[in-house]
């Protein structure tokens, strides 16, 4: 075993010694490498530089310093603001610029989205406007959106009623939305005069609340506007459908007014309101069945308590009877066994 190991090591040593370069070969390789590399020439002093150095002058830095000194401005020319918390004003303005107010007032009545302050980017504006235009194509209730910034307050000079009246059309219903960008909970919504009479305040509030909830659920401001518009479109479509079916949408308003007058809503009024607003058909069917059952019970009770009056006829007496000669049937109610016994006896 050891002999085999020694023999293999010996073979390896022989192979390595044969492959390794010889000293003559190494010297030849170094000479070839030196011949290939061409070194760059060393820098040479010019005659001017040499003269300057001999005189003891600086070659470069002096010129650089001269440039910096030439650009330096005098201290009295600077007018920097003094640092301090009273100067920094982070509170956003609630005012709407005059130019924007005029633009709102003079906006095109046919415009779907009015944004004179350029709050939306061009792409966002086009997307929103396209959606509102699409909605007007499929619905008879148009939506016009006035866009304001988050904290802006609509001044009294910009009359909402005038803006709403501006969009009123003869053959179409109108809904005008005042939307505050990044603050959808402040959204206001109003119908045109004719539409308001048909739909009523209760349904308007339902639409608005539902749309605001849809918008608040979004995190991005542009998504919030989109969500509000989409939900508003859905709610208005439902109202339109109800109007087509001839449902009185102002009934809930009447009930609400009555309840407000009474101070506290009666259970019956609540039930009627629930009946009108519920979407569950099971509840409706159950209520209808309950009503039918109650009506049937009332009918049965009244029927059982009803008295019947018959017509009286003059009838001549018969067989000498003063009161009656109407003889009816006679039956025997003997048990079967007794009947048989009787017949057996007979």
């Amino acid at each position, binding site marked *: 075993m050891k002999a085999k190991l020694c023999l293999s090591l010996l073979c390896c040593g022989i192979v390595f010694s044969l492959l390794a370069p010889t000293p003559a070969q190494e010297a030849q390789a170094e000479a070839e490498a030196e011949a290939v590399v061409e070194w760059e020439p060393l820098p040479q002093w010019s005659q001017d530089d040499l003269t300057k150095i001999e005189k003891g002058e600086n070659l470069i830095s002096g010129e650089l310093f001269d440039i910096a000194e030439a650009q330096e401005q005098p201290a009295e020319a600077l007018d920097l603001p003094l640092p301090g918390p009273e100067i920094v004003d982070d509170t956003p303005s609630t005012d709407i610029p005059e130019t924007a107010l005029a633009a709102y007032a003079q906006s095109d009545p046919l415009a779907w989205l009015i944004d004179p302050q350029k709050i939306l980017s061009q792409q966002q504006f086009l997307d929103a406007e396209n959606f509102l235009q699409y909605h007007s194509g499929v619905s008879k209730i148009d939506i016009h959106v006035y866009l304001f910034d988050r904290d802006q307050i609509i001044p009294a000079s910009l009359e909402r009623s005038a803006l709403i009246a501006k969009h009123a059309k003869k053959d179409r219903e109108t809904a005008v939305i005042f939307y505050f960008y990044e603050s959808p909970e402040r959204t206001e919504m109003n119908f045109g005069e004719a539409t308001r009479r048909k739909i009523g305040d209760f349904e308007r509030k339902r639409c608005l609340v539902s749309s605001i909830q849809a918008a608040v659920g979004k995190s991005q401001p542009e998504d919030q506007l989109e969500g509000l518009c989409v939900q508003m479109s859905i709610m208005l479509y439902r109202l339109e459908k109800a109007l087509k079916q001839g449902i009185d949408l102002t009934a809930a308003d009447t009930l609400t007014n009555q309840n407000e007058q009474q101070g506290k809503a009666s259970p019956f009024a609540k039930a009627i309101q629930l009946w009108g607003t519920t979407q569950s058909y099971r509840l409706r069917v159950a209520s209808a069945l309950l009503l039918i059952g109650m009506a049937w019970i009332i009918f049965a009770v009244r029927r059982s308590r009803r*008295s*019947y009056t018959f017509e*009286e006829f003059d009838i001549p007496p018969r067989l000498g009877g003063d*009161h*009656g000669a*109407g003889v009816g*049937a006679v039956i*025997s*109610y003997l048990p079967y066994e007794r009947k048989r016994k009787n017949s057996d006896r007979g």
Partner: protein
Amino acid sequence: VQKIHRGAEICPHCGFSLSLANQSFVREETRISTLSDIVGILRMKDRLLVQKCMQKFSRRFPQFFFALYIRSFAREADLRQYGFWVLNRAVFFDLPAQLTNASGILLVMDADHRLAGISFGYALDAYLDEEDTMACLLKAQSLWMECQYAAGIIAVIKHLETILIRKHKMLRKNPQPFAQKVSPPNQVISSAKPAPRRVESRHSTEEEGR
């Protein structure tokens, strides 16, 4: 039951009339209650139930009243004759003043021979017939066989109510057949409308006798 002419004073077959019946039942008590249980087959509880049912009948049909007369006969009597006689001769002392025997429906029961029959006054001539009374009695027959007397009597009253309500509806729709049924024999109603089948079968110038 044979049918006789409506104007007959006596039965042409057997000569029966009220005067004959008076002779037969001369010893009978004539002052009775609308609920008379001479033999006492009804318990107090049952009696109250029957009384309540009779009052309800009177409330629903204020022109009529229901009377019950339960007794026993020494020998098997003719309940038709007896019912006819009681209805014409008896004085129901608990009857409202505005009602006469002519508006009564009398159920007579013979407790010994286990027979029951119904007689009714002239006011009900147009609205009841033998078939109706037979239907009422058949409702009670099985109950009476099991000695459930009160239940049987109540069944009779309930079925009578059903029949009278049905007749009331028919009367409102077309009173002509009812008028024709009780019209005098010499009066011809030319414009009479076809009457309902059930009533028409009994309409003729004849009336049932004994």
